[in-house]
């Protein structure tokens, strides 16, 4: 890995925070707060405790600002502080949440219904036998409508917590895979599998929604 160098954006933000700039702080709180609260909630028992964890994390961030070296992005560094506090707090509550509960027990399941493919006895085993509904080229106002966005939101909300957070950070907020991996303390493989599962579930929700719209 290259020598740590703080990105210009983070450098400016850190400088503003160190100078006591309230707007800079609130911008960060607004941008990261909802995700931080959800991540904290994975490890602790109630919303109220999660809020406390988030508050403690921000205090830790402010205390540690002087030692932020830019080895990761600022938001990743903030999440590391958050996750450490949340895990410690969860342990103190006697609450230990297995990885499988957070990640979902469906990580190894196929992302497309196996019946869509030819069976093992077929000479062309594993190739398509029935293609899913093709929603490419749906009129834009349908695919782009607010109902479609709601469908995606609902699909994400029903995902296991870690799948949901990975797709939110990656595809809604645009974090890099490295950032998400570091922020949530995931292996490279786990990050990739969680995102793959989440996207597959959202794609399927879109397929079902757009098929029903096309038949309406």
């Amino acid at each position, binding site marked *: 890995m290259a020598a740590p160098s703080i990105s210009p954006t983070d450098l400016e933000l850190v400088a503003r925070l160190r100078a006591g700039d309230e707007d800079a702080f609130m911008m960060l709180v607004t941008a990261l707060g909802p995700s931080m609260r959800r991540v904290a909630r994975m490890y602790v028992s109630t919303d109220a405790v999660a809020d406390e964890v988030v508050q403690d994390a921000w205090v830790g961030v402010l205390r540690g600002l002087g030692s932020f070296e830019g080895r990761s992005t600022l938001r990743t560094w903030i999440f590391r502080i958050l996750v450490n506090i949340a895990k410690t707090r969860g342990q103190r509550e006697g609450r230990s949440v297995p990885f499988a509960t957070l990640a979902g027990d469906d990580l190894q399941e196929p992302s497309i219904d196996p019946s869509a493919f030819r069976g093992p006895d077929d000479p062309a085993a*594993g190739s398509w036998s029935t293609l899913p509904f093709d929603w490419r080229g749906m009129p834009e106002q349908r695919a782009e409508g607010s109902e479609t966005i709601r469908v*995606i*939101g609902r699909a994400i909300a029903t995902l296991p917590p870690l799948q949901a957070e990975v797709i939110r950070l990656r595809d809604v907020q645009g974090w890099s895979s490295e950032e998400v991996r570091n922020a949530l303390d995931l292996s490279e493989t786990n990050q990739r599998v969680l995102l*793959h599962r989440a996207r597959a579930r959202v794609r399927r929700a879109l397929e079902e929604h757009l098929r029903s719209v096309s038949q309406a």
Partner: protein
Amino acid sequence: MSADAEITCREVVELLSGLLDDELPARERARVEAHLTACDGCSMILDELRETVRLTGRLTEEDLTAHQSATLLDAFRSWRAGG
């Protein structure tokens, strides 16, 4: 599976998210790309997955409640005051 073994549609669909993010090992990527040039079904899933990612990017994060923001602003002010 040898490097030259045919990759099936069923296997390819599990690799498309990694392909979109350019996270597949070079050899695996080459096999998936070769498959896609000849497979309309898998190309369709790739297109839809790309569209899924694009549409997901249009979601917005709900704002923090005013209550939480106010409490945090207090924390920031006391930190700045050396508290």
